[in-house]
């Protein structure tokens, strides 16, 4: 017993929080990467997350392709689709007020979600976890479902991998340079428009990866992304969009805080992240890791 709460319940909710946090981290990472270079808030991020889960489901039911291939194929497909959208439409909006990018991707999200609802209905569909990851291990104080452990580890690997790619590789260096001063980077002979397309595709692919990871945990439904994305927006505001690492850390942190709230004051668990956002805005408007005021 800790603070009058059974250890098992506490650990259980901590784990749920950590899993939610894994998705918050992956999604806010994608948002931050896209925003950093494109200055576009990708409202379609939730729809791309849903798309990732749905493609995994369709690959399984129609093509008989298993989870492990879907984990690679689905982000590739979504990334490709995103690249097409960026090239043909989104790229026309860079010169305008940034709010138009938000409005465009909002429309895109509505159209994608509406289409899936039309063809697949609003109800959720189960997606079984792969055979290798079923079952649970006894940790002594609780049973840990193996798949949930895998979600946390996989998201950590991808988050750290993406961060390393941006901080340590040459491509990442181009990306960071183009974020600082796109005109100068272009004049050095780097193909900045291509870099923008790749970045948008990468962000969307991260969302799709999160979607495939989420498919066995939550049900696959056309609306699975739309409510999540608003929470992720709040996460991004708390973290401050300036820093990639900040987005990741804030994602996990707020997931855990949300899980703990479920234990101690369940009525507030839906809104705790928004409350934290409001407090952070009052005390530190730039966000916890933000540089710009």
């Amino acid at each position, binding site marked *: 017993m800790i603070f009058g709460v059974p250890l098992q319940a506490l650990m259980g909710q901590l784990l749920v929080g950590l899993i939610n946090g894994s998705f918050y981290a992956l999604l806010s990472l994608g948002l931050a990467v896209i925003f950093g270079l494109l200055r576009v808030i990708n409202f379609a991020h939730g729809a791309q997350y849903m798309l990732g889960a749905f493609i995994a489901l369709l690959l399984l039911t129609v093509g008989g392709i298993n989870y492990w291939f879907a984990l690679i194929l689905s982000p590739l497909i979504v990334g490709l689709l995103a690249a097409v959208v960026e090239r043909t439409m989104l790229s026309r909006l860079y010169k305008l007020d940034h709010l138009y990018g938000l409005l465009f991707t909002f429309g895109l999200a*509505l159209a994608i979600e509406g289409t899936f609802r039309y063809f697949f209905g609003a109800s959720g569909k189960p997606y079984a976890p792969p055979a290798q990851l079923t079952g649970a291990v006894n940790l002594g104080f609780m049973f840990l479902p193996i798949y949930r452990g895998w979600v946390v580890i996989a998201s950590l690997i991808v988050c750290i991998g993406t961060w390393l790619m941006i901080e340590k590789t040459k491509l990442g260096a181009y990306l960071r340079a183009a974020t600082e001063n796109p005109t100068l980077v272009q004049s050095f002979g780097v193909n900045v428009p291509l870099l923008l397309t790749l970045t948008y595709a990468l962000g969307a692919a991260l969302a799709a990866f999160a979607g495939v990871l989420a498919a066995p945990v939550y049900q696959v439904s056309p609306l699975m992304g739309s409510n999540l994305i608003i929470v992720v927006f709040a996460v991004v505001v708390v973290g401050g969009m300036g820093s990639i690492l900040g987005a990741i850390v804030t994602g996990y942190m707020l997931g855990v805080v949300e899980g703990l709230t479920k234990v101690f004051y369940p*009525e507030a668990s839906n809104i705790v992240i*928004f409350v934290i956002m409001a407090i952070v805005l009052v005390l530190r408007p730039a966000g916890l890791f933000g540089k710009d005021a």
Partner: protein
Amino acid sequence: MSAKSEPIPSEEISAHPQAATIRKVLVVVALIALLIAPQFLYPIFLMKLLCFALFASAFNLLLGYTGLLSFGHAAFFGGAAYFTAHAVKVWGWPPEMGILLGVVGAAALGLVIGAIAIRRQGIYFAMITLALAQMFYFFCLQAKFTHGEDGIQSVPRGELFGLINLQPTMNMYYFVAAVFVIGLLIIWRFVNSPFGMILKSIRENEQRAISLGYSVARYKLGAFVMSAALAGLAGGMKALVFQFATLTDVSWQMSGEVILMTLLGGIGTLAGPIFGAGLVVTLQNYLATSDFPVTIITGIVFMVCVLLFRRGLIGEFFASKLGRKLGFRSES
């Protein structure tokens, strides 16, 4: 918002000598249309249209004239609907007091959300208003007085000032039409007041407005509260027209819808949001009978608007040769 990116063609077009008269005639025609419309169209549909037209006009006050994109206006619209419905149904207040409570409640909500949101600008402002409105949505989902998923149902319309029974549809229609016209007059007066001029200057160049000594944050907050209060007026009316208040009106989809109405009609024009609301409400009514989801159309219209005609229908007309000949001007 589109001021910097899309200048209106600048070649001189001399205004038609009778331009002012023609504009006045157009307004009179619109007022007459408002009076006789229920003879030709279903009055409930018209009232819905007027409520949304006022809502979109209130939203445009913020986006078009102050340059702030709020993604959370459903909180004020739907929140006021709840306040009005509760006051009228549970406390037995007369309709005018119920609507007043809706307006005051929405303004108070606007004061809190606005005070937090104006701490950031641009895209952040949009995201923060969205998140705070979502928080209010969850509050409405759990609070006792809203009755969660059921909403507040069978709200009585009551008697206006204890004199006019609002239960007959036509009585209600003329009440809604009157409130709509008053709401628009308030917006028109507000936009053309010194306060409105300062708002426009903030939209055009915030730094310069600061350096001229204006307390920008207070003006923004004032505009935000004003916009929220008028959105509340529309929401309170809607609760009386349909005699219920539900979660739909506080959801983020509703916030998106009002953005679409304004964008489609023309940001920064007085008539634009009204036309946009008319189009969107008509479309929804038309599609309500089929099982084709409205969101697909809404989404595509959104994308097309943003990509191809950012001035909106009325804005494009104002920028056209004929529009400029008649002396129309878009404010954004």
